[in-house]
């Protein structure tokens, strides 16, 4: 979990907003508060973290804000709090990908757990995003020939077969293979396979 993660608290009721901030700060987390969903969306700057938001607010409601965030491609975990115990609304929010739905007055541990899990999910997502970026970079540094060799190595083909398929000498395959392994920062075939699996999971491999 990165240290600069921020818990964004969005609630129009000042007392509820400030008290929630006070609770979240008590376990040493950074908090920023907003009085409305509009205000949050205007000021959000791609910081890592998670959101704690009231469902019913004047102006943009919590569910509308969730929709808007989806449209903007924001993936911050969103924890809704509500004073209404409105089951259909909770189902709708969770179906649309809300991280959690907590009823007021909330059990402090329940909220803090949800916040912690939210932050963890977010930082993992961030991490894998960073990793994916680096894999992406490595793969794009390969020449077409090296790329072809890599695909065949991960399929478990020996150099001789690769040389035959690509219609080159075994020596040439060995040179390409050594350079490819270096560029992919893989010390063994097993590690190379692991990296390519991660890449294919994130659709980096074309």
């Amino acid at each position, binding site marked *: 979990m990165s240290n600069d993660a921020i818990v964004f608290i969005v609630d129009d009721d000042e007392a*509820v907003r*400030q*008290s*929630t901030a*006070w*609770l979240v700060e008590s376990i040493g987390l950074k908090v920023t508060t907003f009085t409305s969903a509009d205000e949050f969306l205007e000021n959000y700057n791609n910081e890592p973290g998670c959101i704690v938001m009231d469902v019913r607010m004047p102006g943009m409601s919590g569910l509308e804000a969730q929709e808007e965030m989806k449209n903007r491609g924001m993936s911050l975990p969103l924890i809704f709090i509500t004073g209404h115990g409105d089951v259909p609304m909770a189902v709708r929010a969770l179906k649309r990908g809300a991280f959690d739905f907590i009823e007021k*007055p909330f059990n402090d541990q329940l909220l803090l757990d949800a916040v912690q899990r939210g932050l963890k999910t977010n930082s993992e997502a961030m991490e894998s995003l960073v990793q994916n970026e680096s894999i992406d970079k490595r793969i794009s540094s390969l020449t077409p020939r090296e790329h072809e060799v890599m695909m065949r190595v991960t399929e478990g083909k020996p150099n001789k077969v690769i040389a035959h398929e690509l219609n080159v000498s075994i020596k040439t395959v060995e040179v390409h293979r050594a350079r490819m392994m270096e560029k992919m920062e893989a010390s063994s075939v097993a590690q190379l396979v692991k990296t390519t699996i991660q890449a294919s999971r994130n659709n980096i491999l074309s």
Partner: protein
Amino acid sequence: MAVEESRSEKKTDSQTFFQTKKLDVTIGILSRTPRQSIKSTSWQYSFERLNSQSRYNFIPIFLSAKELNNAVASDELDFVICDAIYYLMLEKQYGLLRLLTRSEQHSETFITSEGLSVYTWDKNSDIIRLKDLKDKNIGIVDINSSISWLFLEKFLSNHGLISKININITPINEIEQSLILLQSGTFDAIISKSGLLDKHIAAEKMENLRLINPRRGWQAPFLHSSVLIPEWPLSKAWYIDNKLASKVVSLLLNRHNTASNEPNEENSYFLPQYSWDIAQNYNAINELFSLSEHIEINTSSRAEGSSKKMQYWISFIAICFLVGILIMYLRSSRDLNNRLTTSKESLEQEIKERQHAQEQALTHQAELAHVARLSTMGEMASGLAHELNQPLSAIHTYVQGCIRRINMGNTDLDAIVNALQLTAQQADRAGGIIRRLRSFVRKGESHKTYSEINQIISEVTGFLETQLKNKQVNLILDLEEDLPPVLADIIQIEQVLINLLKNGIESMSGIEKPSIIVSTRRSNHKYIELCVIDSGHGISEDKLKRIFNPFFTTKNSGMGMGLSISSSIIEAHDGKLYAENNTEQGARFCLTLPISEEHLGSNNNE
């Protein structure tokens, strides 16, 4: 109201007078046979219900058609129960207003329509259609004055029959007897209220009894020979106020529970007991009869002759009627002389009674307002729960934050003290909500104090914050500053305002960008005007006229008492409540309240 004093109470001292004196309310009941007591009639249960409260003493008075007419003409009856056609006459002449319609139980259902059934024996082959009854002997089964005689006359005359001229009719008080007389040939046919004989005929298996001109309508499960008209209405005299009328309606509408199903041991009812339903539409009868009369004239030449006889008959009745009125007039002028001579004491007594009645009316209004407030609270319960939930959540969360900090050895005392102060503020906020709630549902007499109208508005909008928020209603306050205070019962004015705002919010469902404007201004030097203006669907013209009537509602739930009570509250403050549509969209409800005299300006005192 006919407040009649009984001689015996003159002697009682003033203390018991105020405790035990009930206001007499007279109810005239149309009846062919004179009666003294309500006991063992079908009305018994209705009057037990009416007299189940302690404020009024409802007195039944059985009167013939003529007596009833005279009594209504001289305002001696507060309420009238008579058949539908007679009611229409009285409505036209004396402005009676129907409140309820009698309903009778037939097997499992309650029927609010009545009809007439004509029976004959199968062997009477010369009686096929109704007009074949001409010059015959007919028995009228009139148990417990159940026949509507005017209806019977109309029915007969529609078929060219007029009693004592071309048809002989004889009332019979027993079902058995009428059937025996029919069987023996004394009667050629019998006429009864539809459905009355059904049970008897089924039990005796009288298959050779034939119903003439059988019809079936959706309103009733039984066959009938005539058209169906609404059952007897209970109507109020023109001078009876809505409050007493509402009371009567609410006492009588609580029916079906005990009426005829569960006779209790002490006074089991021998007769089926009447119960009451919402008033039916009586105006349809006019069309019904003029229409069928029309057809009769076109198809039958005999009807013309008989209608001339009818005219003669009507003028005869009219003369009788005038003579009746003259006698009544003479009698009442004699009464007046008597009354003048006994004057002073009874006058004082009467003034006392009036004062008492007024006091009671005030208490009654306060009680009704209280009940309405409770019901408003009920409707608003979920919103209030949410409002209370906010400070409670905040308190809980602040305290948990403090505990965590202390457990972790975080000793930033200033921060913790600050958080605890904020917690205390939230506890105050919760307490404030409870206080407001409690004072709103407070029971009791009207307390008028000098109040700032704008202050009341901000209280009320605080109350409705949750509702406004949930429905995304934009509330705009357009309040004139430095308004002089009004002398008002704050709780009651709050009640009216909540009612108007709630109506406004509900009228805007499905409207885009709903908004409500609450405005105050000094309308002239004597009044302050407050308006609640919504952007909803508005109110149609015909509803606008009835909107302040009790029991009028356009909502699926609700009693229809809100605006009626609001209006009576504002009237009790010497103000006015009125409604109109905006020129563009939505409706506005405005009320005026008089500025308290001390604040009208200098030189206006005394």
